């Protein structure tokens, strides 16, 4: 096991260092978004890695203090662009927890549908990113192209491809359009077919296996302590999923499995994600099957005058990258006192990444980052 990395004191040292500095980002094809990893390399082995963030700091949490409870949604979905729905859902649920507002059953099912569709879409991007980082660009072309079908569903349901602002406190913004269920099922049929193609191209590929097995290993016994969450944690062989452990919406009424894989390397994480795509499709089918009819929205009062009781709430959601959560604190006014977002990448992208990269090969940095699901806007907000 690698030694725990401790930031060195002599950062201000003016002597020329021995190790070569490589800047991976912010302008770099291999970086996942706008962030920077400062690599110190000797040969092609990394001796030290420092994540630098802040290129995307838009002060969301400051701005949300200036918006009322509902206006926050325009900002919320921009927290993490590939998969904005879990953030919206967390926020809506946190508000509901604080206010004690009931949500209709149908709305809960629709939320689950949204979350799982978002999960699928995000996995499609991950397919592209993970393979792009290893040089298999065909996979990215396929999966990102197929992701458009999911975005089409979003577009029909919510009006937006990427940003939905669909899940609101008290339910969802609008009901299914006519024939939407069929479209969802058709899309799922198509994706199931495609996922098999992906397996052929990616998981059955000897080079992919060679490149990913034994790279970026997270030790199982340290994983929870290091703050590893989501598929990355399940890739270490630990069965942990907020959908099961701390169930929200209607996940406890749905039948699905939480896949795990042993090893803690990129390959194990990829295996977990491979299964999760299938589980998501299964959940979506169940949602379409089980969704009750009825009201989809428990209306909130005039947002300009809508106040929440003093107190705070914290809601967590299982996103693709892992656990995301929203903490809100209210002082009893029409605007939040504090909204604080917890992203998985906040841990994965900084301390965990810095830790994992030491001793790895330069060639694997991008693959490791992609397998951890580092998403810089989530770190910087």
């Amino acid at each position, binding site marked *: 096991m690698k030694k725990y990395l401790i930031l060195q004191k002599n950062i201000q040292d003016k002597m020329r260092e021995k190790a070569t500095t490589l800047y991976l980002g912010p*302008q*770099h094809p291999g970086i996942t978004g706008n962030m920077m990893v400062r690599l110190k390399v000797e040969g092609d082995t990394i001796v030290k890695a420092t994540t630098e963030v802040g290129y995307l700091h838009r002060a969301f949490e400051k*701005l949300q203090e200036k918006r009322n409870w509902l206006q926050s949604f325009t900002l919320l979905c921009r927290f993490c*662009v590939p998969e904005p729905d879990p953030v919206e859902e967390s926020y809506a649920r946190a508000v509901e927890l604080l206010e004690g507002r009931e949500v209709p059953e149908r709305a809960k099912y629709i939320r689950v549908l949204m979350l799982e569709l978002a999960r699928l879409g995000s996995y499609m991007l991950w397919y592209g990113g993970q393979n792009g980082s290893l040089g298999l660009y065909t996979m990215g*072309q396929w999966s990102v192209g197929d992701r*458009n079908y999911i975005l089409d569903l979003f577009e029909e349901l919510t009006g937006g491809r990427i940003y939905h602002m669909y899940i609101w406190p008290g339910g969802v913004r609008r009901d299914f359009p006519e024939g939407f269920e069929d479209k969802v099922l058709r899309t799922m049929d198509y994706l199931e077919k495609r996922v098999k193609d992906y397996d052929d191209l990616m998981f059955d590929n000897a080079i992919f296996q060679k490149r990913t097995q034994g790279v970026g290993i997270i030790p199982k016994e340290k994983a929870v302590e290091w703050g590893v969450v989501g598929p990355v944690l399940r890739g270490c062989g630990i069965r942990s999923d907020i959908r099961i452990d701390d169930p929200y919406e209607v996940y406890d009424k749905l039948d699905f499995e939480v896949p795990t894989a042993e090893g803690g390397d990129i390959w194990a994480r990829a295996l977990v994600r491979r299964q999760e795509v299938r589980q998501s499709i299964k959940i979506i089918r169940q949602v379409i099957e089980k969704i009750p009819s009825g009201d989809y929205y428990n209306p909130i009062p005039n947002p300009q005058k809508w106040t929440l009781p003093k107190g705070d709430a914290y809601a967590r959601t299982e996103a693709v990258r892992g656990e995301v959560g929203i903490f809100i604190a209210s002082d009893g006014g029409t605007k939040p006192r504090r909204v604080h977002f917890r992203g998985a990448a906040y841990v994965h992208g900084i301390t965990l990444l810095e830790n994992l990269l030491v001793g790895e090969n330069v060639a694997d940095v991008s693959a490791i980052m992609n397998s951890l699901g580092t998403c810089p806007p989530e770190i910087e907000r």
Partner: protein
Amino acid sequence: MINDKNSQKIVDFIQNWARKHSIWVLAYGTGCGAIEIPPTMTSRYDAERLGVRGAATPRQADVLLITGYLTTKTLKRVIRVYEQMQDPKYVIGFGSCTINGGMYYDSYNTIKVLDKYLPVDVYINGCMPRPEAVLSGFAKLQELIAQGKANGAQKYKDNLDWYRENQKKIIPNWVMPEYNW
């Protein structure tokens, strides 16, 4: 011999035609708009059929795509990258936030008007612009290039002092090699 002026015209026409159909976009996702770049490049929208293609380093790139809001920290890098690009070079402002700050109008860390800091050739509005909008932005840029009107780099060169003044207002700690074009 051909008249100098006419031959220059023909050469310009051919060069602009080539530039128009070969747009190498610098791989720099400065903001959240970068999420619509992969769909634009991949199978459904396939920008490569217009000659749009990614370039890894600024030395090889033609177009700097500012995908959304620019924080002050990123602005510094963007300027650095822009100045390392080789003429002729173009800037596309992407999304409302580059035009007027968009929803970040009151944020303390993002710039609101991109064209005060960099010469923007084409703005694409929307938050965020759909791939179709991005493609239409590229088409607009192609049109401008063909007409020889996409001369932001020249504007930057001519008004360097003015741009520098604006930039240095935001970036107090200015340590960069001089721009010597």
